[in-house]
């Protein structure tokens, strides 16, 4: 059963990557930090007794491999300890902030999919030198604008000047509030989608099956929409999976600009307050979401396209 083996293989790979990612964070946190994590998180004014209590609570007085085992065991159970600042379990705090981030990332993903695929299709149908140079320059500019600068510009024009859209906040899940943050988050990524879409679609359009469809009397655009599109979407789906990570990471900055009550902004405040468990929990959860979704996309992609699962799982 090659397909079953493919799924098993991808799941195994996911576990390895997850373990690796969590290990990197552990190594950085425990080996590279100058001084003592307990001292750092309590600040310099804490009493020695408090530091000592936290050290034993965190298991910092045990040998390093034991600490690692404990840390791993807890991470597997999504137990990231208790927030120093809010005195609540980290996982329950994360559960409170996760929906807003998922909403923002979902909105951005939708925008970049529509815009990227549309742009890519438009570039494939209208091939002119001027359009292609114009699109290259526009793409490069969108890739160069930092997400926070774009966000501030959008706020200035669409909220302060034109007063078309709300300037910031979740606004009680009002879809209008989602437009500006999702737009600034999606801008750079949609350029990449458009580039991939254009390349793969143009490639598919040169294949014999399109010639066959055309000779049966289908128009160019019809052949593109009903035949080439289906095959060109595969790589786009893969890129969308990678993008989700960029969205989750970029969401932190976007959430700060737009006062969005999500996981990114929470992690940022945790980092500011030196609330190590909360910050680390936030980052780990974002990374886990990213890795799990990418694995799912790979498996779905394998379901859709037999060439992937028969060809083995390694990318390169």
């Amino acid at each position, binding site marked *: 059963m090659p397909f079953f083996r493919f799924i098993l293989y991808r799941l195994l790979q996911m576990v*390895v*990557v997850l373990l*690796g*990612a969590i290990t*990197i*964070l552990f190594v*950085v*946190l425990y080996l*590279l*930090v100058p001084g003592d994590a307990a001292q750092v998180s309590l600040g310099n004014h804490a009493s020695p007794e408090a530091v000592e209590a936290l050290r034993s609570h965190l298991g910092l007085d045990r040998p390093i491999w034991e600490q690692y085992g404990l840390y791993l065991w807890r991470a597997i159970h999504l137990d990231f300890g208790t927030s120093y600042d809010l005195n609540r379990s980290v996982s329950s705090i994360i559960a409170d902030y996760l929906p807003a981030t998922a909403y923002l990332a979902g909105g951005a993903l939708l925008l970049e999919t529509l815009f990227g695929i549309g742009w890519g299709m438009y570039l494939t149908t209208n091939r002119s*030198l001027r359009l*292609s*140079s114009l699109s*290259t320059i526009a793409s*490069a*500019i969108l*890739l*160069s*604008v*930092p*997400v*926070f*600068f774009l966000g*501030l*510009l959008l*706020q*200035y024009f669409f909220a*302060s000047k034109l007063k078309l859209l709300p300037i910031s906040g979740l606004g009680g899940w009002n879809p209008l509030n989602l437009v500006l943050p999702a737009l600034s988050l999606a801008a*750079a*990524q949609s350029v*990449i989608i458009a*580039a*991939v879409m254009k*390349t793969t679609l143009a490639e598919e359009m040169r294949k014999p099956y399109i010639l066959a469809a055309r000779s049966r009397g289908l128009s160019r655009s019809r052949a593109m929409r009903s035949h080439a599109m289906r095959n060109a979407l595969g790589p786009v789906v893969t*890129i969308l999976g*990678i*993008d989700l*990570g*960029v969205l*989750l*990471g*970029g969401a*932190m*900055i976007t959430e*700060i*600009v737009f006062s969005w009550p999500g996981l990114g902004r929470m*992690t*940022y405040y945790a*980092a*500011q307050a030196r609330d*190590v468990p909360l*910050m*680390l929990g936030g*980052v780990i959860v*974002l*990374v886990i979401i*990213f*890795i799990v979704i*990418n694995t799912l996309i790979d498996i779905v992609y394998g379901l859709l396209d037999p060439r992937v699962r028969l060809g083995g799982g390694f990318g*390169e």
Partner: protein
Amino acid sequence: MVSSQKALASTWEPAQSNGILRAGLLQRLMKNRTAIASLTLAGFIVLIALLVPLLPIQDPLLPDYDQIMQSPSSGHFLGTDLHGRDQLSRLLWASRTSLLVGIVATLMAVSAGIVIGGLAGYSGSIIDSLLMRFSDIFLSFPAILGAIAIMAILGPGRQNIFLAIALFTWPVFARLFRSTILSVKERTFVRAARVLGSSNMRIFIRHVMPNSAGPLVSYTAMAVAGAILAEAGLSFINLGVQRPNPSWGMMLAESMGQFEQAPWLILAPGTAVTLTALSFILLGTAVTNALDGKNAREYQ
């Protein structure tokens, strides 16, 4: 930011580059208007950054509370910020931070990529697959998220930024060198060199490096842009350079609430980051296109 550059690099496949550097990459670039424009812009920014200490500008750190948030005038060409510091001189000094981070972090990533990718490609078998799985782990991280986590743990400061950014950029370069080595390893001219007694080091420098030079240049330009954007992002969320040293990202963050009253405080640093990143991204694109003859014609 860093990842978008990574994703882009992986979508634009480097073309066959057999000694293309020697066969006129420079001449081809010089025929390309985008390449000339981006090289000029990047060169200009680098030149300014080098000359800043010699320019007759005010102290970027000196506050003047009698002159806060002044609009641009002949005394302060770009106005003053919330602490009455001269915006122009802060902007110029920040270019040094930005370029330094962009270049040093990228150089670190390239060196790590040479060592790890070289080792993987050269030794093959189990070491190869172990090293590649290891690089997969770093690639599986959303780069900016990883950098934020590292900075939050290590605290602000330049050295930490170098590390945080390079840590998530090296796998791209490791893959590049590994794949070049694999494609060159069994070729006749490398076998000949080996028979003639060339050392591994010599083969690497004489044969592997020139063959990866084309994509290396375009990846490097993209990585510099990515690192510059990452530094701006990190400084924006207060996890970048240490205050009060100026950084474009931090300048934006400090005046974030002042867009209405003092738009120049937002527009100047924002435009500076965008233009700097743009010059390197266009440079990378131009090199990619010059390597690929088909596109080179299309975009000239």
